[in-house]
């Protein structure tokens, strides 16, 4: 299977990142302890803020992770390519936002997928919208934004982002059409 070929370096990288995460956490805890030792009058304020943010996080994080896990397993790469390859116009943009927003992994997984979509005939505007949706309209992100910044902030930013990302997608497509397709780099990929 295709996934097996990438899993080993991916796993090694993930483990390294996690080790770095724990080292940084330890360093932060030590630094916080030292700082609060020097300014004991700030301890109450700091722990109160930390506790309230901790509670907000802990009540949603497992649920968000479950949603992400389910989508990453159930929505296959083939499915995305199948639906995005042929959809065009407004419908194409909607499909691109939908598949981009599904919680299916970090941004670096989206670039090869976008290149594959390009070679399958998806339009440039759809690919730009897909990548941008993947980057900043992800469902887990929106859920956490809802929790911490409230429904007004989240909804306003979501709607504005969808509008401007769609405009940007069409604009980039026009620019690339005007200036010729040579710079896009996908042509060599298809030829290979």
């Amino acid at each position, binding site marked *: 299977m295709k996934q097996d070929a990438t899993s080993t370096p991916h796993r090694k990288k*993930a483990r390294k990142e*996690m080790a770095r*995460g724990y080292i*940084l*956490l330890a360093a*932060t805890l030590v630094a*916080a302890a030292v700082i609060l030792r020097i*300014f004991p009058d*700030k301890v109450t*304020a*700091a722990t109160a*803020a*930390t506790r309230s*943010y901790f509670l*907000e*996080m802990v*009540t949603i994080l*497992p649920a*968000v*992770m*479950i949603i*992400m*896990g*389910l*989508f*990453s*397993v*159930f929505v296959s790469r083939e499915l995305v390519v199948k639906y995005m390859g042929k959809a065009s116009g407004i419908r194409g943009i909607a499909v691109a936002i939908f598949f981009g927003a599904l919680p299916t992994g970090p*941004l670096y997984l989206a*670039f*090869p997928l*976008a*290149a594959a979509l390009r070679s399958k005939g998806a339009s440039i505007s759809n690919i730009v919208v897909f990548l*941008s949706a993947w*980057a*900043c309209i*992800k469902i*887990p*992100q929106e859920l*956490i934004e*809802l*929790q*911490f*910044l409230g429904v*007004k*902030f989240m909804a*306003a*930013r979501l709607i504005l*982002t969808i509008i*401007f*990302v769609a*405009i*940007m997608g069409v*604009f*980039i497509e026009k620019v*690339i059409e005007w200036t010729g397709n040579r*710079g*896009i*780099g*996908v042509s060599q990929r298809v030829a290979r």
Partner: protein
Amino acid sequence: MSTTAIIINLLALGCLVFALARDRGRTKQAMGVAVKSFVRILPTVFMIIVIIGLLMAFAPPEVISRLIGEQAGFGGLLAIAALGAVLHIPALISFPLAASLLQSGAGVASVAAFITTLTMIGAVTLPLEIKELGRKMAFLRNGLSFIIAVIIALTMGAIL
């Protein structure tokens, strides 16, 4: 638990039940993925929560407000948008950080700009984007994303 948290948990539960009904094996696999990503993001989450505690205890609202608040103006907005474009913080933990900044005097526009550039623009992932999609498309997407992030932020500052 807040209403939002309850809704999110119900949503997860609904997805889980649906997935179990469709395919038990793949649901189990998905739970494995969920546990793994949870363990992976946990240290970063704890770290940011500790930093938020310090930030809220030490950073005086007047200073935050002067740097990235209403009084900071367009320059402050551009600066924080640029910071968001360069930094590589997982999006999931940028929201509590943004909330704490808002609470301690940052402006809506600045916070919106920061989150939008942080998620939409990846200085760290740019080489990969160039490799997969070509220089022209990568630069256009990231460059224009910065501009629309600023427009989104200004609009949000005006309407919220």
